[in-house]
């Protein structure tokens, strides 16, 4: 007989409102062609304020793949990709998205292919064909190559623009997080390319770019980012009033929704609900016993499942690299009246675009700030960018903070790589280690 453990999660109610904003955004995108809008497919950093100001509809490739995975709808796109020749070991974001490209191209042809007509309609017809691509990928070399291949799948007929990002390796002695000669030079280089991108968009749309609209959008995004940061800081409270999973549910709004008052209102709501929980003593995980840091890109197939799984053990996942160190996370860098430099800097601050030295600094700081007891590393099978430094980060956390860690297998958008028993046994083992160390007084 299967015994279902009681759900000990207490998720933020406001995220439902966020869910509605996201649904509305996608519906608008799916009907953008009918409204005469041009459509851009893009990947990497959040260029949406530029697209918003340019008056085009935008589809973020990773976000679309994540959406399909979260809705358990990634299968047909991945099947189409596999039939076309993409290996299952390829980044599942790109594989899913390229599968959509293949379906789109097939849909314009004879409709042949391994994916049935119903699914083709569901995926390809709803995701409108791009009028152009923009790549804005920092950190992972695969990101830039992925869009180049999309360009080729569409027969080189869809214009493409690449924004290149230097990897923040930190060669110079003055290099560090948000500082040093390399940081300054890289910031300027990317900002210069954004100016080029805007000229290119003017050519593609046949309209002058609306700089005031960009400033307005960034005005709202800066406010939303500040509210988000305030909310994140509130989660340092013990026990945690909200978890990493609540913030995961708020990734889409901060990552690609339009910069407007609704976005600000949403993050004000998030912050206020968290503050209200602190004021009234409401916990995010019933009986919080352990505080865990999550390193790894999200496993979108298992979002709700993982939040319950950790909570079953009294483990409150309080922070993670994908949240604390991503998505307009340094709003003080943003200047709405002259926005490009701060935007460029955030694209460079992608959490996979740092050498291990900087990541180690950020991880240790987060673990200390959030009073973390252990780290769960999501060994994300097809994401080499996130997983590369994980072993080094685990060793450093143990050495410098005495924090144990565990690894579990999964993936961003391919459920087949997730092994539940491995997570269960390794999580239990790490929590036991924490218990033993507490008993010995070493934690």
């Amino acid at each position: 007989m299967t015994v279902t453990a009681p759900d000990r999660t207490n998720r933020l109610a406001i995220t439902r409102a966020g869910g509605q904003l996201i649904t509305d955004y996608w519906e608008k995108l799916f009907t953008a062609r009918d409204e005469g809008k041009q459509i851009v497919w893009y990947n990497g950093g959040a260029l949406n304020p530029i697209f918003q100001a340019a008056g085009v509809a935008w589809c973020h490739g990773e976000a679309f793949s994540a959406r399909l995975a979260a809705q358990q709808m990634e299968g047909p796109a991945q099947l189409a990709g596999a039939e076309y020749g993409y290996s299952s070991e390829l980044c599942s974001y790109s594989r899913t998205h390229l599968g959509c490209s293949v379906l789109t191209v097939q849909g314009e042809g004879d409709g042949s292919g391994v994916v049935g007509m119903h699914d083709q309609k569901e995926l390809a017809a709803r995701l409108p064909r791009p009028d152009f691509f923009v790549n804005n990928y920092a950190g992972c070399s695969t990101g830039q190559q992925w869009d180049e291949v999309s360009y080729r799948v569409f027969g080189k007929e869809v214009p493409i623009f690449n924004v290149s990002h230097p990897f923040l390796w930190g060669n110079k002695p003055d290099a560090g997080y948000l500082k040093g000669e390399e940081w300054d030079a890289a910031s300027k280089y990317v900002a210069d390319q954004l100016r080029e991108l805007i000229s290119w968009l003017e050519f593609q749309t046949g309209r002058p770019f609306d700089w005031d609209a960009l400033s307005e959008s960034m005005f709202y995004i800066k406010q939303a980012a500040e509210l988000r940061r305030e909310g994140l800081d509130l989660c340092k409270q013990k026990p945690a009033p909200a978890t990493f999973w609540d913030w995961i549910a708020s990734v889409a709004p901060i990552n690609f929704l339009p910069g407007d008052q609704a976005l600000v209102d949403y993050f004000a709501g998030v912050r206020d609900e968290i503050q209200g929980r602190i004021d009234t003593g409401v916990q995010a995980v019933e009986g919080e016993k352990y505080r865990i840091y999550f390193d790894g890109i999200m496993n979108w197939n298992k979002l709700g499942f993982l939040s319950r799984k950790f909570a079953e053990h009294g483990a409150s996942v309080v922070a993670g690299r994908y949240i604390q160190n991503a998505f307009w996370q340094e709003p003080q860098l943003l200047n709405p009246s002259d926005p490009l430099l701060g935007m460029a800097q955030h694209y460079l601050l992608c959490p996979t675009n740092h050498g291990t030295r900087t990541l180690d600094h950020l991880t240790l700081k987060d673990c200390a700030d959030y009073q973390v007891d252990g780290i769960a590393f999501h060994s994300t099978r097809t994401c080499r960018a996130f997983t590369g430094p994980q072993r080094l980060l685990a060793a450093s956390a143990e050495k410098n903070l005495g924090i144990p860690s565990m690894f579990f297998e999964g993936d961003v958008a391919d459920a087949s790589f997730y092994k539940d028993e491995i997570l269960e046994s390794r999580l239990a083992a790490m929590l036991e280690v924490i218990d033993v160390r507490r008993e010995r007084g070493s934690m």
Partner: protein
Amino acid sequence: MTVPAMERLVRAARDTRGYVAAWRAAHPDGKVLGVMPMNFPRELAHAAGLLPVIVPDDQEPVTEGRALLPEFYCGFTRNLADQVATGRLDLYDAVFMADHCIQLVGAADVARQLQPETPVFFGMLATSLSDAWAGQKVAEMMNTFREEVEALSGSKVTDESLRASIAAYNADRRALRQIFDERTAGSTAWAPTELQDLVASAMVMDPVEHLALLELARAEKVGQPRDERVRVHLSGHMCHAPRRELLQVIEDSGALVVDDDLWTGRRFLSTDVDEVLEPMEAIGHWYTSRNGNLPCPTRVQHDADWDTWLVESTERSGAEAVIHLMPKFCEPHMLLYPELRKRLDAEGIAQLLIETEHEGIPLEAFRTRVEALVERVLRKRPAYA
């Protein structure tokens, strides 16, 4: 007793540590620079008096390195992590890298964290080569490389010394390329493993020394015309060598390798540095033109098509089939492979995908698959009267 030239080249190719030790003995004040593939201009380091050695996959099994990078990193990068973990990477005074492959970055980061006394410099060359500003950014990075090798060696890179290094590497590349061109034209003097050793040794040795040995080795070779085996082109393995035993199995299975675009083959030799241009300009031009001469899926360049290059290459060599050698987990290759397959299918060129691993490759399974490919091609050949 004098060691034959070919044997010396083979030793350098297969025993980097041994060659470096001998070089250090002969140059007690000299420094050795480990160069990560694929595009760092060794000419700059050589002109500064360094010995630039392209760090190879040393074909040793991965042991302690398993704990440093995930198992789904490519075999080469896991091997590099293992070289760090077991002290095998300590033969370099510094490591330089110019290429942004996220898995290679991961391996280099392991080196930097575990060997903090060894400088690991990463200067990322522009990868989006269709951009109007790419040439300028490449030139800036080449100047940075120049400053860094000067700082490491303590010697200035003068235009004169750089011209001499460019000429030396060009001469070695030309001689190697000539051998590959002879194979394309019909010679079977060299087995694929021998050619791999010739190129791999060039990645390790001083170019003047390498060229001298190469000329001696060539003089000892007698050309042989092609036989009736099925002519194949080997494609892939863009940053490290395929296992030698795999190359042997391919030729043992009724195939004859007539051309390639491997890292330890034509890819490495594709482009000389222009000796007419100003030397720093020429170094930048070398990098930006390499991808046009032999396209690589790690670069983004809209008018450079590996599939077209492959088709034209098979026309030049008379290859009847293409064998794709794809290192497991190599994302650039995984991404572009369907485009290659589609184009070759359209051209009616037989092909076979072999996914390679660092160790534990199923040779007998590969043999069966290559034999099947050979059979397929033979059936397409016109029947003899």
